[in-house]
């Protein structure tokens, strides 16, 4: 995306996109119905929340952190909005704004614990994971159905594209978040500081970057993304339930990593995370179109495809690195 640099750094991303296209083509060859525009758009509709989570996660991973709480924040937001809209009769839009605020505060607290008390991100956000789920269960252990008209209207609204094709409001939100995130990551000082921190935190500090502020803000951003994803998810499911989004943090991390983000920090692409999420979606889709797999084979095949994907990506990147070493011998001085 960053125009001046279509350099070797983007190769892992290119590989992901390529593999995605290969998977899609394979699906299209095997199942003719696969090759419809709507199947492609469904990927966005069905994975909108995951895309948003993965985007937030990308920023966290870029600074070398991790956020395990995203799935349960999503769940908490779903549950809280269902509760507020249904049982308390609050205005839906006010609820949505409130949810984004809750997400922000959630992230802010986690970020502050990590930054100012030097706690480990893994542990703090693991506690955040437990907390969110516990809080959701505390609001209600039973499912709360969202019958509110506004929510239902938004959920059923179809943004028509050409032909019969359409996407949902959730998908639109995801795309807007995507564009914003690309802008933040590559064209703002905040975004670049995040990358610098991931590259080398003490260097970033010595270069005079606002390390503490950036780190806390990144966790806040992730909290906001989780809340947005939660709102999108509540459109998608029209209910709050304390087991919603279980294990989704790992899906989000997997999306980011498949998209070329390194957990060690400093390297990551928002657009890659989009493809990471879509790749997982397409793997699921392939399995559904096949429709013959046993329950357990479903799990095994998902994992195997994921594995193949990750290994191919890894090998291609490794090869690229060694080739770079071979070809890139230019004397500088």
């Amino acid at each position, binding site marked *: 995306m*960053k*125009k*001046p*640099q279509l*350099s*070797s*750094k983007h190769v892992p991303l290119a590989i992901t996109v390529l593999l995605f296209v290969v998977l899609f083509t394979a699906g299209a060859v095997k199942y003719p119905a696969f090759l419809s525009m709507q199947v492609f758009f469904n990927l966005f509709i069905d994975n909108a929340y995951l895309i948003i989570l993965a985007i937030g996660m990308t920023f966290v991973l870029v600074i070398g952190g991790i956020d395990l709480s995203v799935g349960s924040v999503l769940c908490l937001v779903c549950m809280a909005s269902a509760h507020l809209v249904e049982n308390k009769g609050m205005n839906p839009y006010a609820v949505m704004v409130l949810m984004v605020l809750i997400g922000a505060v959630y992230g802010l607290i986690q970020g502050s614990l990590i930054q100012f008390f030097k706690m480990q991100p893994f542990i703090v956000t693991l506690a955040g994971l437990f907390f969110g789920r516990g809080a959701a269960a505390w609001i209600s252990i039973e499912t709360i159905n969202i019958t509110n008209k506004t929510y239902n209207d938004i959920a059923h609204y179809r943004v028509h594209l050409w032909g019969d094709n359409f996407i949902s409001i959730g998908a639109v939100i995801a795309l807007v978040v995507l564009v914003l995130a690309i*802008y933040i990551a*590559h*064209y*703002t*000082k905040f975004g*670049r*500081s995040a*990358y*610098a921190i*991931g*590259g*080398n935190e*003490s*260097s*970033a*500090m*010595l*270069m*005079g*970057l*606002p390390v503490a502020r950036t780190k806390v803000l990144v966790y806040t951003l992730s909290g906001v993304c989780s809340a947005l994803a939660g709102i999108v998810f509540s459109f998608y499911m029209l209910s709050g339930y304390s087991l919603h989004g279980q294990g989704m943090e790992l899906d989000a991390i997997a999306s980011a990593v498949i998209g070329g983000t390194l957990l060690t920090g*400093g*390297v990551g692409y928002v657009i890659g995370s989009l493809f990471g999420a879509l790749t997982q979606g397409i793997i699921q889709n392939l399995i559904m179109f096949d429709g013959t797999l046993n329950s357990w084979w479903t799990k095994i095949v998902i994992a195997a495809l994921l594995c193949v994907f990750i290994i191919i990506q890894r090998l291609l990147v490794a090869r690229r690195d*060694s080739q*770079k*070493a*071979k*070809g*890139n*011998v230019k*004397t*500088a*001085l």
Partner: protein
Amino acid sequence: MAGNEPILRAVGISKSFPGVKALHDVNFTLCAGEVHCLMGENGAGKSTLIKVLTGVEKIDHGEIYLEGKSILPKTPLEAQAFGISTVYQEINLCPNLSVAENMFIGREPVSGCVINWKEINKRAQAALSKLNVKIDVTQSLDTYSVAIQQMVAIARALDVSSKILILDEPTSSLDRDEIDKLFEVLRRLKEDGIGIIFITHFLDQVYEISDRITVLRNGELVGEYETSELPKVQLIAKMIGKEFDVLTSFNKGNAASAKGCEEDSLCNDAAFIKAAGLGRQGGISPFDLSVRKGEVLGFAGLLGSGRTETARVLFGVDKADKGELYIKNKRSAVASPMNAIKNGMAFCPEDRKREGIMGDLTVKENIIIALQAKRGMGRCISAKEREKLADKFIELLSIKTSGPDQLVKNLSGGNQQKVILARWLATDPELLILDEPTRGIDVGTKTEIQKLVVRLAEEEMAVIFISSELDEELRTCDRIAVFRDRQKIAEISGEDLNQNCIMQTIAGGQKHA
């Protein structure tokens, strides 16, 4: 020479770390338009003073005045805002960002509300070309060598600089050309009235560039001197606290090289290690090389000429894809460092932060770890033996530490280097490869290390000594292999072993070196 009004004044600065008093009641004054050298042995507290001045470390006691106003920067960001820009010891940039971005991050030019990448790249290119560095600034920093990274760090600081420029050992991995260029720029800045603090262990550079010198010893101020009034020998005396005669104390000269360097190195049967056509695609072109026991072989060449690559291939860090390697006349495939160590080799790498120290382990553990690896996992070195080894080497190399159980990351840069050296000496190797072992090491210890190398050679160890300082090589080596463009181009020994000849060879006899 100097003597403008003071721009920065630090009064009564004290700073302690657990177990160490790094600075004690130190005064320091920097004037506008001067280059002020900060001198002292490893661990004297130079870097700590810089860190305290720029808000990296919290100050215990003391005050800092900038242009007469009391300031107390709490973060480097604040220091930057006060107009102090700094290049810290070791390169502190972000390897994952592009060269251009590293230079402008934190102060990117913005047009509208987006960062103007075109502008950044253009300005970065311009700033680097002032230092004679012509590279693709859009590539990420980690694709370049240490030297270039150092140049980038300097270029960044120069570009940021407004009132004060601080350089902590900026020249440790630069070669002559680059240093000249840097000094040229520094002189220009000086004329513009900028105050410059300069830390280095190269005495020649001190006398070449500086106006005044402040000497620290063991965290205390020894004094402040006009450079022109302080002879070199006295400066050293002040640094180490006793009389010391560098130039006469040690000079190996060419005496030892009479040991038959004339022989064809390839058919040398006494060779400990012999490489025939060894090479690695993209790393180093095939080369022949042999090192005998009791011989010091130097590698000379410009930056990126392939010296480190050669060492890495010999040690099995990178796998050779061509040629053969003989150890004690037996063909052996050195496929990994472990393999090499088992074959009696040791390799003290050039990038100590990344490839050398294990920051969170103690000095003791860092010293014994290679020996332990050599013995294998099963044969554990006993606690007593560990203690003994650690004490021995702390003493031998005079490593400044509060004890063998101090974490290595808390040592000063030079002392970390010594720990790594100790690590390898502990393995009692037959071939010791030293890649820039004296980088960031003070004069006294530097000489000690050179002496040590010679002594080790006398004790029948084979040594490969890589250094960017030619006179250091000349002083210690029996033979010098010259590299250029990732190719071994010559081997010099005997009569020809002098500065001139080597420079000529490096330059390829064409242009000036």
